């Protein structure tokens, strides 16, 4: 039976991966076509300010060199085969391989996102639990109000607010960037980095709690009204023990999966927060690549974020599959 379950999980993951590949292909094609049809002229974007010094003949030669005179489908295949070899091209803004830039930026972003993810998950969960256990009291109302307000607050606005209060007025934190300005890279300490991380991470977490908290609250209220909790009370269980034995068990799993499935919002939030705080992460790179017509970098980022979000969803699915006994153990033992 055990072996059977292993095979089942294996085929489940395989199916997911096939889906991932078709999705990636579709994303590649669509973003390629979108950019092809956008007003960005790759030659112009590449040359930039020197455009005036380059004659039309020279421009054509560049276009020919890059294969821009070939049919769209050939161009796509060229790009696609390079991609399959792991070559994402060279960023025009940074003049360095795209994969290198993404890797570097990802390290910065991952610290930010992970901090925000853990903080918002834990705090949101606790808020949801407290709110549900104290349903209809003042504390529940405050938490609900907070969540509803935040759920409709734009990230950039929250970020600006944080900057104004904590960086400008109180001066507790630096106003932006990932490291202090005017300090050599090798002189930057961990403490410096942490100090620059706190405000953006806080902004993201403060906003991120709403979703988990509201979801956990709903779920726990359902659980507390369920037949099995009633029966547990009939057997003399109460208070914290009751929550620990029957509540936590039944709400933790949905909360964790929700948190993984929220990777896309996390990424979206990071893009905005990094922009506000000039934090050198993936989000900021995305905005720059978009604004300055850095096609290879933009495409690379699109692919990367797709994989990132998909990974979150995949982890959520796998956790549900593996942890929930109802899917894990088959009916006959």
């Amino acid at each position, binding site marked *: 039976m055990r072996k059977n379950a292993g095979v089942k999980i294996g085929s489940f993951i395989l199916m997911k991966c096939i889906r991932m590949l078709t999705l990636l292909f579709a994303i590649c094609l669509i973003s390629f076509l979108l950019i092809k049809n956008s007003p960005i002229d790759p030659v112009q974007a590449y040359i930039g300010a020197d455009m005036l010094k380059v004659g039309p003949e020279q421009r054509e030669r560049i276009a020919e060199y890059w294969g821009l005179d070939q049919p769209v489908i050939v161009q796509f295949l060229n790009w696609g085969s390079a991609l399959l070899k792991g070559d994402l091209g060279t960023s025009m803004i940074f003049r360095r391989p795209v994969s290198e830039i993404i890797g570097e930026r990802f390290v910065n972003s991952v610290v930010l996102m992970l901090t925000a993810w853990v903080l918002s998950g834990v705090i949101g969960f606790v808020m949801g639990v407290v709110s549900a256990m104290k349903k209809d009291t003042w504390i529940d109302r405050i938490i609900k109000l907070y969540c509803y307000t935040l759920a409709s607050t734009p990230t950039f606005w929250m970020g600006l607010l944080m900057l104004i209060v904590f960086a400008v007025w109180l001066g507790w934190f630096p106003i932006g960037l990932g490291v202090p300005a005017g300090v050599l890279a090798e002189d930057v300490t961990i403490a410096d980095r942490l100090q620059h991380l706190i405000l953006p991470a806080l902004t993201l977490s403060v906003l991120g709690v709403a979703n988990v908290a509201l979801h956990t609250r709903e779920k726990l209220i359902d659980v507390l009204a369920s*037949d099995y909790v009633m029966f547990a*009370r*009939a*057997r*003399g*269980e109460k208070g914290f023990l009751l929550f620990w034995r029957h509540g936590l068990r039944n709400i933790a799993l949905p909360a964790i999966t929700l948190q993984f499935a929220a990777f896309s919002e996390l990424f979206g939030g990071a893009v905005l927060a990094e922009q506000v705080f000039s934090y050198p992460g993936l989000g900021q790179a995305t905005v720059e690549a978009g604004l300055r017509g850095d096609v290879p970098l933009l495409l690379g980022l699109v692919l990367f974020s797709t994989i990132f979000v998909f990974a979150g969803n995949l982890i959520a699915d796998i956790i549900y599959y593996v942890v929930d*006994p109802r899917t894990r153990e088959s*009916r006959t*033992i």
Partner: protein
Amino acid sequence: MSVLEVKDLLISFNQYTSGLKQQQLNVISNLTITLEKGEILAVVGASGSGKSLLAHAILGILPSNANVSGTLRYDGEVLTPAKQASLRGSEIALIPQSVNYLDPLMRVGNQVRTSARVENPVTAQRKVFERLHLHENVEKMYPFQLSGGMARRTLLSTAIVSGAKVIIADEPTPGLDPVVIKEAMESFRELADSGCAVMLITHDIVSALSIADKIAVFYAGTTVEIAPVENFAGDGEALRHPYSKALWRALPQNDFIPIPGAQPHPGDLPPGCLFAPRCPLATPECDRGQPEMRTLRDGMVRCIHAT
């Protein structure tokens, strides 16, 4: 002395009707029953007549929007909410209806152990499982893996390991096959014979009759008759209340004549005798207030014309 006494129990809910108008729904009213050691009292009545609330009221686990009045006594002592909380699961145990009352994410062995009030819950649970012919594997299962019969016996074992003296079984037989029902009924008899007081709340009169000592007939939120089980025989001539007689005759193995009409909705109860709209013997006096429960022969009845 009775172990458990319920006197004039009233359970009502406030319901908002159109607009902000509030209406009080009396789901259970004037309910009086007693439970004796070593005895099985079956509370029988149609499904959906609020019988489960009786069980919840005794345990003190009604939803917070329920209003309760009347007196409950355990061993002669008045049951306050605090007293109920201390007796729940140790002196009074509930056997719920279905497997949905087990935590879906907890192994059933553990759930049975949490009910045990003895020093070694694991051995207690294993002993009970053995006694109820539950295979050792079962303790490692999750509720969704149990068959109907296994679920039944698991729920029963929660009550047995608790060592409670009063056991309230709420609709223990729906959707089970006759063999499992028979087995469940026999286990209740065993519990009663070992000195427990058992209250069996059910709509399955036939099964209840096979093991109960007394039958309380429940109609529209109250008891209309309490009769020794022997009265349910022949044409029902020994029964006191017209509803009990009709119920008895409506059984398939008897005349199989359904009772015309339907139970009144709690928001729309008749002014007098609750059974009057459907009663073949009703007279104008019957509409003048609800008849009191009175002793008649060796039982009790709530009907002014009963003889």
